[in-house]
């Protein structure tokens, strides 16, 4: 489902003397449907960079990333947009939404973008928010005013409201209490059971051991090591 080959990435900082910082070289791995792969490595090793390239958020300088048959390193923007709508979900660590939009609409939005009827989309959003213990009194408020843990759960709800065949999770359990952490882990297990290919970053070692089938240390992709 997700196939990464010989990926290379460097940043060129044109306004800081034109330095080029190589970040990844020769990165390669693949993820089958129903499998969860955890990216590991120290802070700064390039875990998030890999995730961002997989989502089409960063450009790669070399290699290929095929998700559901589409090579996103060569795809047109509209193909990546369609992939994100239908196939590829992403739970980032930060919630980025239009201020003043109610939480319920924020969570229902991915479904509305897919053409699901408004009432059904809201119903599924309600079910997920309930499961993630976001108090109903907050649903009509914008999540921009919520606490960190609440925002993270809204983000998770957005990422799981549609059953994406491929899913990227950036520290999904980071700031959650035990109960909510348990809910998120079972959401991940359900997604795997229904055939989703998942790539995740988990600093929570227990969570990683429970949901990840394999670990990939991105330190192996660092250019310094290869040189």
């Amino acid at each position, binding site marked *: 489902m997700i196939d990464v080959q010989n990926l290379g990435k460097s940043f060129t900082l*044109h*306004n800081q003397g034109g330095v080029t910082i190589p970040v990844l070289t020769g990165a390669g791995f693949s993820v089958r449907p129903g499998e969860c792969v955890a990216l590991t490595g120290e802070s700064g090793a390039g875990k998030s960079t890999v995730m961002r390239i997989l989502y089409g*958020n*960063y450009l790669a300088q070399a290699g290929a990333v095929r998700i559901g048959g589409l090579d996103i390193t060569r795809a047109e923007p*509209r193909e990546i947009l369609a992939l994100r709508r239908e196939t590829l979900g992403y739970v980032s660590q930060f919630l980025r939404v*239009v201020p*003043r939009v109610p939480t319920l609409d924020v969570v229902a939005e991915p479904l509305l973008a897919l053409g699901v009827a408004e009432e059904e989309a809201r119903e599924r959003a309600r079910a997920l928010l309930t499961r993630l213990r976001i108090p109903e009194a907050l649903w009509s408020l914008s999540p921009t005013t919520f606490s960190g843990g609440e925002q993270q759960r809204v983000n998770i709800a957005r990422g799981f409201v549609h059953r994406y065949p491929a899913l990227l999770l950036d520290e999904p359990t980071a700031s959650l209490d035990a109960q909510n952490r348990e809910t998120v882990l079972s959401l991940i297990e359900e997604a795997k059971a229904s055939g989703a290919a998942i790539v995740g970053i988990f600093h929570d070692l227990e969570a990683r051991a429970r949901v990840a089938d394999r670990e990939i240390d991105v330190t192996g992709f660092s250019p310094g090591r290869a040189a």
Partner: protein
Amino acid sequence: MTPLLDVKSLTMTYGGRIGCTDVSFTLYPGEVLGIVGESGSGKSTLLNCLAGHLPPDRGEVIFDTRAGGPRDVLAMSEPERRMLGRTDWAFVHQNPRDGLRMRVSAGGNVGERLMAVGARHYGEIRGAALDWLDRVEIHESRIDDRPAAFSGGMQQRLQIARNLVTGPRLVFMDEPTGGLDVSVQARLLDLIRGLVRRMGLSAIVVTHDLAVVRLLADRLMVMKDGRVIETGLTDQVLDDPQAPYTQLLVSSVLQV
């Protein structure tokens, strides 16, 4: 899929100075394209050339018309282009005063565009006006008030209602949230996003506000000195800019 708009090598000069030069891009149905750049980068010139407000020196603007399929707008007769401007196209100006008739009531502003495409039944026109005022969150009790009595944010929402009432397929927007309070901006952004999704609109939005394009545009085009220097997915261009100028632009944004 046929692109809704296919722009080829569009060039416009003012005397010897470059307005915009050699701009090419395609826009597909349902897409929102943001154009950013500082003042004088040519983004407004480009928008006005596309919308038929300025005559470019060279290039093609091919629009997938409802009746006749893809046609070069620049080769159309003036009446044909005006008709397009009233039906399939809409233009939302930065200053609502440029897009509204200030001496006509709010309902009249919305109804006038319907009448321009042949609507004559008073009850239906007023009904459509009421419906649209509601959609842009202007209370029905204000239908007979003139826009001059509205706040800036309300005027901008009225301008959007006036433009969208005829069900256009392509909307040009020039700094649609410029000059508004940030709280009003957010509400307007949400409104535009909702309308784009529900009506399947395509839009070209010119702005210098990177936060606005991040929330509104699927794709981004960065302009400098009349040229397009970088294009891509909006979040990709903003998070991993490649061109020196784009890096400078993104890194210069003040963090709140």
